[in-house]
């Protein structure tokens, strides 16, 4: 690339990273309830979940988003000069996380998210009211792990040897 193109690419990269940071801050504000009071409920209202079982509570999406943004920011801490593919890959984690969390929420108890999650979850409120939000957050943070857990669940759902179904 010519020096001009390099500068342009650098600018675009910087703008994208800046946009990601802004989105992260927005996510933090929403999640803490400071921006729109009442939006961030740490727990998922059970009555809603029972009355509308086909719906995904917005809280789940919100916390998956916050988790994904957290992952993005943590990676930028380490990598002060990310190249274009890195930025794009990280940016794409956000929709990926939002989508994967749908599966984790729906399948709830059948998905095993792994030892890290199992270790942390019992430390939460004993009523488990914040569990779902926190799980959503973890899905956002570790999308790959959540996907792997979903794949195991999917392979076990069908009759026959699960390892034969591995992609």
């Amino acid at each position: 690339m010519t020096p001009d193109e390099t500068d342009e690419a650098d600018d675009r990269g910087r703008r994208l990273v800046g946009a990601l940071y802004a989105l992260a801050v927005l996510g933090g504000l929403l999640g803490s309830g400071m921006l729109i009071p009442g939006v961030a409920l740490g727990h998922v209202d059970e009555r809603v979940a029972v009355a509308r079982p086909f719906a995904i509570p917005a809280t789940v999406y919100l916390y998956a988003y916050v988790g994904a943004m957290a992952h993005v920011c943590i990676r930028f801490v380490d990598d002060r000069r990310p190249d274009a593919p890195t930025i794009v890959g990280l940016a794409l984690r956000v929709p990926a996380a939002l989508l994967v969390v749908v599966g984790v929420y729906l399948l709830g108890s059948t998905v095993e998210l792994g030892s890290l999650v199992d270790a942390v979850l019992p430390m939460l409120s004993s009523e488990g009211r914040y569990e779902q939000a926190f799980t959503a957050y973890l899905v956002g943070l570790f999308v790959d792990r959540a996907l792997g857990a979903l794949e195991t669940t999917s392979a076990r759902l069908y009759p026959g040897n699960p390892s034969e179904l591995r992609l």
Partner: protein
Amino acid sequence: MREVELRRDRAGGASDSAVESGAAWYTERLGVALVVVYALLACLGVLAVVGAIEGAFFVGRFDARYYRTNPFRIPPQLLVYAFVGSLTHVFTALAADPDAETRTVLRFGSRVPVALLLVFPAYVLFVSLPGHVPATADLEWTRQLAGMAFLLGLFVEHAVGGFRTVGEALILGRIVRPMLGRLGRSATDASE
């Protein structure tokens, strides 16, 4: 988990997934038009399956008892499911071989009328073979019937093979073997 390699089409023609080295369907107007037609048909099928299309094929009403007592009346809804199943084959084959030639894409779609025609003998086979459809509650029976029609569309070759087996068993068993026995040849020779 094994690593999954996304198959690519290298510039210059030969991709390692497809056997053919011709032009991919999306580079030809006919190819694109074909896939658009398939997509429209699939939308139509989905609307029918969801119950949005009324008429003779309406899936909203299904009198299972009537069909169970009249095994030679074929429920028209099965045609809907065979139709959708054959289109499912079209799209799964397309997703597995996305750079296929237009010719191949046409071949994918040729199963649609075949599936529709095969519903009739398949239904007779399934319903008349005793115990083949586990006789359970009406809901289960209905769903399984629809499922069979769907699978007929999706895996037409299974149905063809199955019919061939049945046909062989029937014809060889009832007609050919006795005839050959009378001619003095052993049955095992004949079935080769």
